[in-house]
């Protein structure tokens, strides 16, 4: 498998909606395109996979130009070495699991029955190998789709909302599986998603896509500290942590937080909105909250709101108003007390 990077700089209009973006995916990295529904994410997938030719710009994969209307260059989808994990899997309904996985090798004239068998075994699909997609679970279907995309040993991997159709438990399993396969994948990886959680967990770098344009690029931390749009602040800015849960409490590093959800145990993902984290000069008392002391490490002010980066024991981002910053006299390096209500902490299986 040879890893290749992707450079995309293009404009395309379809049904009156224009997508105009420029981004790069270095080989061996996962880039997330994070945006709300209707932001143009699927159009990017279609463009990269060659199903939709661009109107202007250029797309390069490795050293090959695959689409450049000015030069009259266009490489057909079947000739691009891309693996796509489609939204809802998109398994062929008339073929068995085995035949779905073997579709790529057969189409490329390299039917290697051994490879199909190895993938079926690796992904634990032996029991359902002869079943049709309608007779397997959503989680199994996404595993089949992953095997089908990877068996051709593509240079580039596109993941289009790979977990949107899964329930919470299958999501956790799929996320682990993706992590494992993404780490082993040498080429460029593009994750398309509207879940900040997935983007933060799987991507090295995030581009936020809104109305066909990239409104912000950066690491999860950079976006949390300096969200440039309302969408980025509300959704992309959420704090994401992993911890160990047991009956009403979650242990994250050295800190134990009380949570409202008592039904979850084991490895969990913890989400915490910056707006839900309250900061105080003195230790707040008397209420059933999670309280701890820390110091302010960073501060970014924009539009009457201040993003506050907190230090150990729980490196999270809080958001307060400019007024409270002034009235409480917060500066970088100041010692503060943090409080979070148990009901404000989201917990789900990792």
């Amino acid at each position: 498998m040879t890893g290749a990077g992707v450079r995309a700089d293009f404009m395309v209009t379809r049904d009156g909606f224009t997508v105009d973006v420029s981004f790069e995916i270095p080989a061996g990295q996962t880039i997330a395109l994070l945006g709300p529904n209707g932001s143009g994410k699927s159009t990017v997938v279609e463009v990269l996979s060659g199903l939709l030719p661009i109107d202007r710009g250029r797309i390069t994969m490795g050293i090959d130009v695959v689409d450049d209307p000015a030069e009259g260059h266009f490489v057909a989808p079947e000739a691009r070495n891309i693996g796509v994990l489609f939204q809802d899997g998109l398994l062929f309904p008339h073929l068995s699991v085995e035949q779905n996985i073997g579709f790529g090798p057969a189409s490329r004239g390299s039917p290697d029955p051994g490879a199909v068998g190895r993938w079926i075994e690796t992904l634990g699909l032996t029991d359902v190998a002869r079943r049709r997609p309608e007779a397997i679970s959503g989680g199994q279907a996404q595993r089949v789709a992953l095997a089908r995309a990877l068996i051709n040993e593509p240079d580039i991997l596109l993941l289009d909302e790979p977990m949107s159709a899964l329930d919470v438990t299958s999501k956790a399993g799929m996320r682990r599986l993706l992590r494992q396969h993404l780490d082993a994948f040498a080429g460029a990886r593009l994750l398309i998603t509207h879940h900040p959680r997935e983007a933060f967990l799987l991507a090295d770098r995030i581009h936020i896509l809104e109305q066909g344009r990239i409104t912000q690029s950066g690491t999860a931390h950079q976006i949390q500290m300096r969200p440039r749009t309302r969408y980025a602040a509300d959704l992309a800015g959420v704090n994401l942590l992993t911890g160990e849960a047991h009956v009403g409490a979650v242990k994250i590093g050295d800190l134990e937080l009380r949570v409202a959800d008592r039904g979850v145990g084991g490895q969990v993902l913890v989400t915490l909105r910056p707006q839900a984290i309250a900061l105080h000069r003195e230790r707040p008392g008397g209420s059933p909250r999670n309280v701890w002391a820390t110091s302010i490490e960073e501060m970014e002010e924009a539009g009457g709101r201040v993003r506050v980066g907190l230090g150990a024991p729980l490196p999270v981002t809080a958001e307060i108003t400019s007024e409270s910053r002034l009235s409480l006299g917060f500066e970088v390096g100041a010692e503060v007390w943090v409080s979070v209500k148990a009901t404000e902490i989201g917990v789900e299986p990792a």
Partner: protein
Amino acid sequence: MMPRGARTVPRPPPFLVVPAIVGLAFVLLPIVGLLAKMPWSKLGSLLTSDLTIDALRLSMISSIAAAAISLLIGLPLAWMLARVEFRGRGLVRGLVLLPLVLPPVVGGASLLFALGRSGLVGSAVYDTTGLVLPFSTAGVIVASTFVAMPFLIITVEGALARSDTRFEGAAASLGAGRWTVFRKVTLPMIWPSLLAGMVLTWARAFGEFGATVTFAGNLPGETQTIPLAVFVAMETDRDTALALSLLMMAVSLTVLIALRGRWWRPS
């Protein structure tokens, strides 16, 4: 409050039930009439006569050929109509379906003016190759295809328009070329509709009369299919007409029953 205990199952209303029964009787009565008059004792000899065997052979050849030709040229046409946006697509769609509403006799006459020995295209064909379509078995096939192909087109176009093209995109991303995608994804996904369209097309061709008699004439052993033979026999030999009608009914019913699991499902 609902009355206790008595759960009222809604009954179908009489104003629908009565006409429905009349409708069913209307469909079944002619068949019963046919069977009542059937000369059962002579049936064996009537069905093995040269006339019957020739007509059945011609009917089978022409109807199967019409269905096959419709598949070869009608399926691609349906695909174009469903998947390619071009100027005048609506007009083309209307024109393609014209034979559905055109009286078959007019269809046959039009074919004669176009493909006849002195016709628009037919004269050029005759001058260069010496081939004459009208009044030949090939002419029967042409006439049957003309009237029957719209059934295939209309069924398949609908199925193609309903099918999700993202599957074809997925196949292309896996390295499948256009032909492989068509053969291994597009066709299997519309297979039930394609089969239904083929059966309808075949059935229409099997019963074809008007266009055939006008374009290909009524030559026993050459162009006389079962419907034509029935028409002639109604004037001369009622018993043969009855036996041939029974034969057609049996063939049609056999096909319907054989394929019931495939397309007799309520949609």
